């Protein structure tokens, strides 16, 4: 770690010295949306005269070195009309640019502006779906979901029917670093994984990186998903309201002080509980002695304040809260007595972040982020019995409550230094204090007045750890054709007296071919100090976040990737091959489950192993114009090996999917009618099935009193993941009718999920037929589902 720090400081000083001798001026500033003042992240600037370009960073800031004189500078961004500005430079200049949105559906404006095409990006394995397209995709129940839209991209797979988990290049969901406005989130699902926590109306941009990770990212093996919330409209108040059959949501944004400070607030809530309550009440009326009361709802709230403190400073405050609450209560009455049972399960996410952007010089930009992130999971059950007599009332009650969770406090400092048009440096560091609660159960009981009660807590103790990292990366223009991003990420974890250190080199190369295409290659070593303890069958909120400890090693991976990219007439084409090896993967031991962690130490229930994943990804994507969409295809393999699982033999990872294809089509017939359709296909999920039976025996006595044997039939599972479910395929369509009213624009969105009604497998069971024969059947849960949603935008 000290070595890395020394390298970082020396490199910085050396580069500053070199730069001081150069005779250039620095043009810097922000690129923003003309209508709202919203910063545009990843917008590109290209100066034809010096054949140099740059892009805005994660805060919309750019900095480019240009010689004295007049320059034509073209600024462009996906979905916006490119603008060319004439800039006269005689000294360093700070200049903000504005772009106008909405005209880009006209293909005529999408000329081949250099520098923002896929072949120009040094970073490979990075994908972005414009939010405008995400909101137009067909959605189950009319509820658009960000993570499900990412599942349509090559290399990113879904966990199962309807679920929002991401499985990237053979990795598991815990290996995805999901960052909401700079804050890592631990649980991103609502409704047992069927929806993600992100409200699409509140999100400005999302990008996913599957490999070739720049050094500024670390802490996870498989992907980085950056989700940036809207900053809030600086000019005027705007908002959206959306009502679907599952949930309603709103988003409102506007200036607090025009062009100085803005806010954004959004919320969403399901009303499944409100819909079923009257039905339940009517059922309960039929038998007044039995009352059943199921409940379920989720909500999430996003808020953000953005304040331009001065010319060089900006402050952002943001928060996110989301909760799911599921429960079932039942009461049965017997005369004057009654017994009741109440089961509950809830999980809660809370994130708060404060960020300070400061422009030290036209070349040096910094961001300080201070965050708090909390994920809590609770489940409990209470039994009670009350006996009432004429003279007395006795109540016996037993309840147990299981809690687990994780709380992070973190501070991060990032610097961007545009040394010259050959070197763009990023460096910084991070400190995160984790507090893990890997599961504790409280039991309470009362047995009436005459007997003592019970009040005890069992389970693992809290684990505290400190995680730090430093990084430095340099985006280098080695020649007109050859560019590279080279970096080093050093991380360290201290936990329970043990410490782990990891140095992670990162390299990404881009070589432009004479025909306009580019060949790319990358290498990244990644390290992960947290694990998600989960059963592979289903992703549940009971999944347990646990740290690396003196008994459990961190996870690490190495990924090599190579590919080719080229844009043909507005269609981005890319082919990538990758190979990833993983070490320190965590799994429950055979026979273990979440319930083992309730009364025993989780470290005794786990085993560690290795894994490999490799494959090829093809993507053809059209991002602009009346007709947009993409075709993606992945051919991949993913295998794992644990000494204590499957007799130590390699086995296919549950989400090893040989073929995974998706077709996404969006077409705007007119300003009033919008159409979208998707089709997905995936090889069946690997699964373990009971394969055979035999009769086993235990002696009734081991000491000779009897020769009897106690017999029982054992069902023996197959080798791990030896079978496959049926292939998964489905088509969805959506039709939107838009109409501009006096004060707002309203949309009716009609969508059909699984339009040709292919029931896809969700789980499998051994069934006994009427004639006594047995069959293993797959069951599906989502047939064709039509839905309707209403949306207003003002």
């Amino acid at each position, binding site marked *: 770690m000290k070595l890395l720090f020394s390298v970082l400081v020396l490199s910085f000083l050396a580069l500053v010295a070199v730069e001081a001798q150069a005779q250039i001026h620095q043009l810097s500033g922000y690129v923003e949306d003309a209508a709202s003042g919203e910063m545009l992240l990843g917008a590109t600037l290209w100066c034809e005269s010096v054949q140099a370009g740059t892009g805005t960073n994660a805060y919309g800031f750019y900095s480019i070195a240009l010689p004295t004189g007049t320059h034509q500078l073209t600024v462009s961004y996906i979905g916006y009309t490119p603008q060319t500005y004439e800039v006269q430079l005689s000294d360093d200049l700070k200049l903000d640019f504005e772009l106008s949105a909405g005209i880009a559906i006209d293909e005529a404006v999408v000329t081949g502006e250099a520098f923002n095409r896929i072949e120009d990006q040094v970073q490979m394995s990075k994908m972005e779906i414009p939010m405008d397209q995400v909101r137009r995709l067909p959605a189950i129940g009319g509820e658009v979901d960000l993570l499900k839209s990412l599942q349509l991209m090559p290399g990113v797979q879904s966990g199962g029917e309807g679920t929002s988990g991401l499985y990237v290049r053979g990795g598991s969901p815990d290996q995805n670093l999901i960052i909401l406005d700079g804050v890592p989130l631990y649980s991103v699902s609502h409704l047992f994984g069927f929806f993600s926590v992100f409200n699409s109306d509140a999100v400005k941009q999302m990008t996913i990186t599957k490999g070739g990770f720049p050094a500024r990212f670390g802490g996870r093996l498989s992907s980085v998903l950056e989700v940036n919330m809207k900053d809030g409209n600086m000019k005027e108040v705007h908002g959206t309201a959306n009502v679907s059959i599952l949930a309603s949501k709103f988003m409102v944004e506007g200036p607090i002080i025009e062009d100085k400070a803005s806010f954004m607030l959004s919320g969403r809530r399901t009303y499944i509980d409100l819909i079923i309550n009257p039905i339940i009440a009517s059922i309960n009326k039929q038998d007044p002695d039995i009352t059943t009361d199921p409940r379920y709802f989720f909500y999430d709230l996003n808020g953000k304040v953005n304040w331009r403190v001065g010319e060089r400073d900006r402050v952002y405050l943001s928060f996110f809260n989301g909760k799911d609450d599921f429960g079932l209560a039942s009461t049965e009455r017997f005369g004057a007595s009654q017994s009741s049972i109440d089961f509950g399960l809830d999980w809660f996410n809370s994130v708060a972040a404060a960020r300070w952007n400061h422009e030290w010089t036209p070349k040096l930009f910094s961001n300080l982020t201070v965050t708090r992130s909390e994920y809590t999971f609770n489940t409990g059950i209470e039994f009670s019995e009350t006996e009432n007599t004429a003279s007395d009332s006795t109540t016996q009650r037993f309840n147990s409550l299981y809690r687990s969770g994780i709380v992070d406090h973190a501070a991060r400092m990032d610097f961007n230094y545009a040394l010259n048009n050959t070197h763009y440096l990023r460096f910084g560091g991070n400190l995160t204090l984790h507090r893990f609660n890997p599961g504790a159960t409280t039991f309470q009981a009362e047995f009436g007045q005459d007997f003592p009660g019970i009040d005890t807590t069992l389970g693992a103790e809290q684990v505290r750890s400190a995680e730090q990292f430093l990084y430095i990366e340099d985006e280098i223009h080695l020649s007109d054709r050859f560019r590279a991003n080279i970096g080093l990420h050093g991380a360290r974890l201290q936990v329970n007296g043990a410490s782990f250190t990891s140095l992670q080199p990162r390299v990404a190369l881009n070589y432009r071919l004479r025909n306009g295409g580019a060949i790319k290659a990358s290498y990244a070593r990644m390290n992960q100090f947290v694990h998600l303890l989960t059963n592979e069958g289903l992703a549940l909120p009971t999944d347990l976040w646990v740290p690396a400890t003196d008994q459990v090693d961190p996870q690490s991976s190495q990924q090599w990737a190579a590919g080719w990219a080229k844009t043909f007439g507005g269609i981005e084409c890319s082919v990538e091959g990758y190979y990833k090896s993983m070490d320190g993967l965590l799994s429950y031991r055979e026979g273990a489950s979440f319930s083992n962690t309730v009364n025993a130490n989780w470290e005794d229930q786990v085993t560690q192993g290795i894994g490999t994943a490799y494959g090829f990804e093809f993507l053809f994507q059209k991002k602009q114009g009346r007709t947009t969409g993409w075709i993606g295809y992945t051919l991949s393999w993913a295998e794992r090996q644990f000494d204590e699982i499957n007799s130590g033999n390699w086995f296919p990872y549950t989400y090893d999917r040989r073929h995974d294809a998706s077709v996404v089509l969006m077409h705007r017939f007119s300003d009033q009618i919008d159409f979208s359709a998707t089709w997905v296909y995936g090889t069946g999920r690997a699964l373990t099935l009971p394969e055979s039976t035999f009769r086993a025996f235990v002696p009734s006595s081991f000491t000779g009193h009897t020769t009897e044997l106690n017999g029982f039939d054992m069902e023996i599972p197959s080798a791990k993941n030896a079978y496959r479910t049926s292939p998964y395929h489905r088509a969805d369509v959506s039709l939107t009718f838009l109409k501009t009213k006096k004060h707002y624009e309203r949309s009716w969105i009609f969508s059909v999920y699984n339009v040709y009604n292919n029931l896809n497998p969700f789980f499998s069971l051994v069934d006994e037929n009427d004639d006594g024969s047995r069959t293993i059947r797959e069951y*599906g849960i989502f047939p064709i589902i039509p839905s309707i949603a209403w949306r207003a935008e003002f």
Partner: protein
Amino acid sequence: MKQLLFLLALILGTTGCDKLSDGVVREIAFPEHDPQIAVTFMARPVADSLVARAHSSAGILDSIGSKRIKEAVYTLEHAAGNSITWGGEADWVQGLGHVLTDVDLEDGNWTLTVEAPEFETVTSTQVMPPRIESSGSYAYAYTAALEDEFVDEDEFGYTYLTRTIDLSLTLPDRVDASDYFLIRAQKTFNWEDFEEEEYGGYVVLNPRVEDDPRIVWNQLCRGYLIQDIDAVEALNSLPFELYQETWGPELEAISAEPIVLEVCAISAEMAQYYERLDLIDNPSGGPLFTEPVLAYSNVSSGYGCFGLYTSSTLPLTFE
């Protein structure tokens, strides 16, 4: 556009209702199962009789299931060359299996071979665990002290006796071997002496040390499997608590009822076999949420287990 809407309405109206009714996607085709011999032969060195069972394994879709193989012939051969053969129809005892009588096995390596028509011959090898009995008694130290006793009588004249006993048990701890043991309480009461309806009782055995990784409850064996993990003398004076509850019309009879413990030194293979079967039979998180467990077998090209164990009883009485 109207045509498109009409088409969508048509699809909605005409498809899928049948699929909604049962949710079945399809049946999973399974390869035909190749039946193999599943053997159970748990033997101790000296016994009047021991039982071996051979069944054929069955595919999961076979509704009849595992079938006994009456024709199975067993050969038990010592490394020194002496052997015992039994089985076939002649040794078959209905309700039990193939019975081997007048057993007297010496220490050392034993190999079991099972042959049956139409099945591949299977073999398994075992080493005799350490003997824990000497002159008909447990050969190592143990003490049992009555901690607490409570007598109660209900309105129908039934007497209830509860006892808590502190047990300290030493197990053999060989320096050069990692041994396994099984300890469990026998059913309380010898039912032949009493009317079943009138007398009853049970004994619960629990280790005093919580979360001792060496001591694991096994539901199938109804006892604790104990593994010698630690260094020398690690299995000295293991503390247990015994809880006995008996009831019946006569206090004298239930007071005299002993607690009988069975202590066995079992082979590592036998321990692993029952440990695995127990995990399969009693999944901790239910069948959906528990990592699948592969069955363990020390039988070549078959299922089941050939296990050797030595055993002793510890009768504990308290006046």
